[in-house]
């Protein structure tokens, strides 16, 4: 082709290798992949169970369309931030006793969690509701960075507005351990471990409100 014969591709090739050298290693990649793969497997099993139960119910009640709607819902959740993981949120929101002092204490998100589960609580006429969001991949890494470098709530001018319920952020580590953080949407909004709290990261705030 006359056009690309005029184009010397060696600088391009060298430039590509130079650009690729900017890619940072991710030592925890396999753990994240393993956690994600297991979660997907569990989700597929769960959706299969839902489909099976739904099929039985559908036949019994003559509602054949319900299972396919559920399957479509499951398929739509495959993303860095997905709903309904294998980690179950406690039924009740955290109480005031779990609130922490601003600033002091160990940093939040010590180490490299492989996943985080956000439990967003609410109230309706029949009691407490909970929505579960799963955070993995780059969204998780960004969150961990924000938690580790978050500003103390004392650095911001916040209102005294009180909001209930509070929410949970549960960090899950490769060894199976978890770290339970409490999210208080009152005032500026904070996330804390019981001994330390920082201002709520913007992305987390948006996820809670989504």
């Amino acid at each position, binding site marked *: 082709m006359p056009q*690309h014969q005029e184009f010397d591709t060696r600088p391009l090739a060298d430039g590509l290798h130079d650009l690729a050298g*900017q890619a940072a290693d991710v030592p925890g990649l396999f753990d994240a992949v*393993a956690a994600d793969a297991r979660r997907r*497997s*569990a989700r597929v099993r769960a959706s299969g169970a839902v489909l099976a139960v739904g099929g039985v119910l559908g036949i019994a009640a003559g509602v054949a369309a319900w299972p396919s709607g559920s399957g479509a819902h499951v398929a739509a959740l495959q993303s860095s931030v997905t709903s309904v993981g294998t980690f179950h949120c406690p039924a009740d929101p955290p109480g005031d006793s779990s609130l922490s002092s601003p600033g002091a204490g160990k940093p939040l998100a010590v180490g490299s969690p492989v996943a985080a589960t956000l439990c967003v609580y609410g109230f309706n006429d029949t009691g407490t509701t909970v929505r579960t969001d799963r955070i993995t*991949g780059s969204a998780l890494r960004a969150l961990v960075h924000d938690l580790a470098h978050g500003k103390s709530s004392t650095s911001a001018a916040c209102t005294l507005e009180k909001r209930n319920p509070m929410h949970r952020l549960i960090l899950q580590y490769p060894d199976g351990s978890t770290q339970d953080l409490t999210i208080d949407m009152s005032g500026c909004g904070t996330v804390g471990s019981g001994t330390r709290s920082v201002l709520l990261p913007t992305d987390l705030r948006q996820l809670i409100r989504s």
Partner: protein
Amino acid sequence: MADSEPRGFREYVAARRQGLLATAYVLTGSQHGAEDLVQATLVKVWPRWNRVAEAGDPDAYVRKALLNTFLSWRRRDGREIPSEDIASLPPPRAGLGPDSDSDSGSGSVSGAAGNGMTGVLDRIVVRDLLRALPRRQRAVVVLRYFADLTEAQIAEAMGCSVGTVKSQHAKALTTLRRHTPAEDR
């Protein structure tokens, strides 16, 4: 079962991780994009790993999976796509070539960033050049000039004909030539 770790997969990932991240980095143009792309790819490979390993050429399979994932990444919602992905990027700067069709003068291809003295395009220029390409063309360029694959290997990886690879390659180079700062051609 997908719950149990496939034998040898951990070792494979440890050995190939950096190479996969590098390829994904030049495809997506960002660290976050690269991490998401590689993770999504390996999650897909996980349940098939035993068969893939037995078949004897896991690199080709993983490369194909990476390409498929990259090319099929859809914009389902704002959280799924790496934030720096192609559609969010500025168009190439107008006036770099005789038939430039850019509608903006605010693009980030900078002649000053080119490194003509060493014969290596500055990484900023390369990244911006790649951003000027549609995904399939970008993939062809990356596989050809970064991964050093032949046209036949690229066709296999992308699941298309050699003729398609050739045409995508030619279009890509035409675009790249048009957008390359004159002193770097």
